[in-house]
């Protein structure tokens, strides 16, 4: 397993540079937006990756509540952390794209608002993990993750209704996508997913080590206490 890590790292690096080349050079220039539109190849794959990671967080939290396996808790933590990073990328690249195209940094449109609320929910999850006493963190965090995930459909549904009531002029209209663009998009998504997986993996190893160190320290303090009292 440990040997696979550098191999996957190199593969991801190659894939990322290929995806960068595809996005900047190969992909056709969009007719109305021009080169600005190329941020699309980072914006959308990041969003998909973040949603997948949040789904993994939900599943891992349920598994932890059901089986109480420490590995599930580490997976939940890791996926939430990396998911928040990707969600932040989405929220940062969005305004950068919106400013030249729509002429504004931000609009309270359905997708923007619901992604922001999603980000808030998972940041609060990470804050709970940071502020709770270490022994209780896994259970409390898993409970919050389940409630947070249950909240997501409500967020989407309520904001969808709010925004269809008051339509915004600057909604990015649907329409079809050029097959060449779709191709580049999918390659970028693959590269981003590999990268996310790589980061998650190394973070998982770190989390496991952390836990082992904590356990060793606890054990040491238990075995050494009587000696020092003597």
């Amino acid at each position: 397993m440990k040997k696979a890590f550098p191999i996957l790292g190199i593969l991801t690096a190659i894939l990322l540079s290929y995806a960068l080349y595809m996005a900047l050079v190969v992909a056709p220039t969009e007719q109305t937006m021009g080169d600005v539109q190329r941020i699309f190849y980072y914006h959308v794959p990041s969003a998909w990756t973040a949603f997948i990671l949040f789904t993994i967080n939900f599943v891992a939290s349920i598994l932890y509540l059901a089986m109480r396996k420490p590995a599930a808790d580490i997976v939940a933590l890791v996926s939430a952390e990396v998911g928040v990073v990707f969600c932040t990328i989405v929220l940062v690249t969005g305004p950068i794209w919106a400013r030249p195209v729509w002429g504004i940094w931000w609009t309270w449109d359905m997708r923007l608002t619901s992604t922001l609320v999603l980000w808030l929910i998972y940041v609060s999850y990470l804050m709970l993990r940071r502020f709770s006493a270490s022994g209780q963190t896994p259970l409390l965090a898993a409970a919050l993750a389940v409630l947070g995930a249950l909240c997501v459909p409500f967020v989407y549904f309520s904001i969808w209704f709010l925004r269809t009531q008051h339509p915004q002029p600057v909604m990015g209209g649907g329409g079809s996508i050029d097959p060449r663009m779709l191709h580049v998009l999918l390659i970028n998504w693959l590269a981003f997913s590999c990268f996310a997986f790589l980061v998650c993996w190394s973070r998982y190893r770190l989390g496991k080590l952390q836990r082992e160190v904590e356990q060793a320290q606890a054990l040491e303090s238990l075995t050494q206490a009587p000696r020092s009292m003597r």
Partner: protein
Amino acid sequence: MPAPTAITRATLLKDLRLEWRSKDAINSMLFFSLLVVVVFSFSFDPSAEESRQIAGGLIWVAFLFAAVVALNQTWARELRNQVLDAYRVSPAPANSLFLAKALGNFIFVSVLEALMTPLFIAFYRLRAIGPAWQLLIVAMLGTWALVVNGTFFAAMSLRTRSREIMLPLLLFPISVPAILAMVQATTAILTGETGARFWIVLLVTYDLVFTTSCLLLFETVLNAE
């Protein structure tokens, strides 16, 4: 062992009696929301037309922040003399305790709302154009949504450092759909432009989903060690 409902009733009555004698929560909530009303009145011109548009958001923001005051006190009281630990080792079901606390908070916040609403009406010259009786439904559903999650997260933030700050940080993001629904329903009823049906249905669903999941998860949170 007494029935779960008896435990709920006993805990609820104890909390109500404590509150009746001390009036800690209700006084601080009342004063807090009064401050919000006054401060907000400086930020816009409280004429009838404009306030009708804004009042929905304003009222619920005031109640939301005031409710956090009461919610933070929910469990803190039980920490003294290790009451909560005693409860955990007793065979009493955790959900009876949770329901008692949630109902208690519901009563406190409802009393606050009943006392503050006339003030809001007077200060902002409010008069509903839509069906005003629906406001009562929205208020009850919305308050329950805030209180059931708030009681749950208050129990959760009890286990954290700086717990008083932790509660709103956990509660507000998850309550976004409920707050949105309350504010939009209230505005819809006040202005009479659109119906509030969708938001009421959303609130009912939200209440059902979160009451169920809080009840399912509360024992885990209470006994987290």
